[in-house]
């Protein structure tokens, strides 16, 4: 087997595009390994650890590196990859042919060319993200910082800069927001409506906004703050700024606030701010009382004056050839971190000894995230799984491999999974899960675990909520409209 690597100098493509190209190359006949990545010290170390490049070259952080291992004419494949990387950014096919103006090379040039730009969505590598955010703030733009790996000092500095300039900084590590009906990052297509959301959690924001949409209400604005905002050191700077914006928005009739329990001093500051608002607040401090679904329900009742109509999802198709285990453990395989933490917390609250690789009240830490023990909830979006690999909301392959592994274990009674729809996510996560479930092989006793899923999404999403539910139920997967209802039903099944 041969191995070639080649630098593509002074070239950049985003992490998702590189992942897609790597996967396409890896799927070609004769190719054993394919990686296309930014030639940073960290990425080269990953190549060495993974045994792909025993002796990696010196880092060249503004160049791309193509690595191919396999049989056949690797050089011409690398040529082809290089041509593709050098081609104009993938925006051309989006904006229409020909007369697309060349993409500006920087924030400054972009703002010079179009002074009406008022919002920057930043998802460049974390090492550079704070600098780009600062340039955008300085040019008068609000900023959503999707990138993570921004230091806490930079975060505080950026948030102070934003406040001084009367601008908003969402993030870092802000996965989701919906502003003026525009989905940003991983976000769902929701109807406009009276509920304003401020959430420190990306999937938490997606869950409550999708539920409100499907129940028939809607969202005025949904701000993500990033997970660290309510830590003592950051002081809830973004959350408070977002609440100020909502307080001035005449279309917002209720504030729905979602976060982990904040530091005590921050909690007092938030409570004081909630009391000053002219509109009512529903606060969901995850793991303290309300589930995301209950919080969404309370907000719905406040703005619509009645409880939401119960959503009825179709029953899963019965697969007569399958025999399910009648005892064992719950195994949650999650792509959304907050959904995973909520599930683990609900399981522990029911009295079941529960393990997880994320922290939640009453939940025991998992010894090895790669190996389940007891009732167990795994967030596959945690760092240990995403180093050098795309997030499971984009690339389900790791979760599906884990699904087969869990199914083969005789102590797994029921597998739970979240299926998160929306913009930015995998084009059809329901089909990917359905195929993997259909391919499960019964154990020596002819038994399999059941697979249940909660689906986060709306009818307006590109994947379409009802279509996804249908795909799943056809594969024998029982579907739930919320994570809380999924976990409640699963705990009921155990008894």
């Amino acid at each position, binding site marked *: 087997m041969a191995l070639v690597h080649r630098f593509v100098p002074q070239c*950049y493509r985003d992490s998702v595009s590189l992942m897609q190209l790597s996967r396409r190359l890896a799927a070609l006949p004769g190719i054993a390994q394919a990686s296309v990545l930014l030639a940073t010290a960290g990425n080269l170390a990953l190549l060495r650890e993974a045994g792909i490049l025993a002796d990696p070259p010196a880092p060249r952080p503004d160049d791309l590196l193509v690595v191919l291992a396999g049989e056949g004419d690797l050089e011409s494949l690398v040529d082809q990859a290089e041509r593709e990387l050098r081609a104009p950014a993938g925006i051309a096919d*989006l904006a229409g042919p020909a007369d697309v103006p060349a993409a500006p090379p920087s924030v400054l040039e972009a*703002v010079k060319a*179009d002074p009406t730009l008022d919002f920057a969505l930043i*998802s460049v590598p974390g090492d550079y993200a704070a600098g*780009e955010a600062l340039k*955008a703030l300085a040019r008068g733009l609000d900023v959503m910082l999707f990138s993570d790996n921004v230091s806490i000092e930079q975060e505080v500095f950026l948030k102070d800069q934003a406040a001084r300039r009367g601008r908003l900084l969402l993030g870092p590590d802000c996965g989701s927001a919906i502003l003026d009906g525009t989905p940003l990052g991983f976000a769902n297509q929701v109807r406009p409506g009276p509920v304003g959301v401020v959430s420190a959690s990306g999937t938490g924001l997606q869950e409550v906004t999708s539920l409100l949409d499907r129940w028939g209400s809607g969202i005025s604005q949904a701000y993500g703050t990033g997970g660290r905002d309510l830590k003592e050191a950051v002081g809830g700077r973004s959350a408070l700024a977002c609440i100020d914006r909502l307080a001035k928005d005449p279309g917002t009739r209720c504030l729905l606030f979602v976060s982990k329990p904040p530091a005590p001093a921050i909690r007092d500051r938030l409570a004081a701010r909630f009391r000053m608002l002219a509109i009512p607040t529903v606060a969901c401090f995850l793991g303290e009382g309300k589930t995301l679904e209950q919080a969404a329900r309370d907000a719905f009742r406040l703005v619509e004056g009645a409880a939401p109509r119960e959503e009825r999802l179709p029953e899963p198709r019965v697969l007569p050839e399958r025999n399910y285990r009648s005892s064992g453990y719950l195994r949650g395989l999650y792509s959304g971190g907050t959904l995973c933490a909520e599930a683990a917390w609900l399981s522990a609250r029911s009295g079941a000894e529960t393990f997880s690789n994320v922290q939640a009240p009453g939940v025991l830490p998992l010894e090895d995230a790669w190996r389940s023990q007891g009732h167990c909830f795994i967030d596959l979006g945690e760092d240990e799984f995403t180093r050098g690999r795309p997030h499971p909301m984009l690339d389900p392959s790791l979760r599906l491999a884990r699904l087969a592994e869990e199914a083969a274990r005789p102590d797994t009674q029921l597998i739970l999974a979240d299926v998160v729809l929306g913009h930015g996510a995998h084009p059809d996560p329901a089909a990917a899960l359905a195929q993997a479930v259909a391919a499960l092989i019964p154990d020596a006793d002819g038994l399999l675990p059941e697979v249940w899923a909660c689906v986060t999404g709306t009818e307006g999403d590109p994947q379409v909520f009802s279509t996804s539910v249908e795909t799943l139920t056809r594969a024998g997967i029982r579907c739930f409209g919320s994570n809380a209802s999924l976990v409640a039903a699963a705990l009921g099944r155990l008894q």
Partner: protein
Amino acid sequence: MNVLNLGIQSFLPGLRDSRTPFTTVDWKPPARGNAALAWTAARLLADSRIDGANAEAWKRMTSCRPVLIGIETARHCLPALASREKLLLHAGPPLTWARACGPVRGALVGAVLWEGWASTEVEAESLLADGTIALEPCHHHGAVGPMAGVVSPSMPLWIVADPHTGAKAHCNLNEGLGKVLRFGAYGPEVLDRYAFALLICKEFGLDASRFTALPTAALGQKAARPLDGGLKVAKAQARLRTRLRGPDEGLRAMRDAGAGVDPPRNMK
């Protein structure tokens, strides 16, 4: 909302579907991938004091009508060069010998030789390296070192003033084309030209109010290319069949012409 996207391109369909206008940046790691440098640069770009100071600097540059006051030896017009022994002023921000680029090093060595502080370039370099000769930016002393320019105590400087503010600035004389100190050259032909400039200083240290320095563009003229250098005196004398004067003699004649005194007949 009008969105600027930096990074992941697969966020764009969501913007398109909700009919939100967007621009995408053809982003590359700034500062050639040096993250610490990129952060420093971003902080400078975001520092509002710099925008304000740039606007003020631009205003002062464009509203100023500089007037040439005269030519003076550096030690007589820059107090620091008079009071301190072995000080050189250089172009650019503060630096040390170790951090100086090639052309600045060349100009510094040239200035040390010109001052007679050393007789060989090796000796000059060691005086510069061990700090015997102090280095400070021209800009700290109201002077400009054009290109890699260096100012030493015995160099002649133009003195230019803004009559409105009284601000005064000092600058090396232009040495013409070829090997020049401002590009770091310090061979004998460069130093000879400085000797010539000193003669100009001696002859023309008078009535400077006649001269107003203006950008060429303000005169509506194209800048003329300076005459070719490298004139071979003996060859020229033979061809012209006339005696060519030495620099001091020639300058005196020019000064007299400027004062309205007819030149001696054989100058015509």
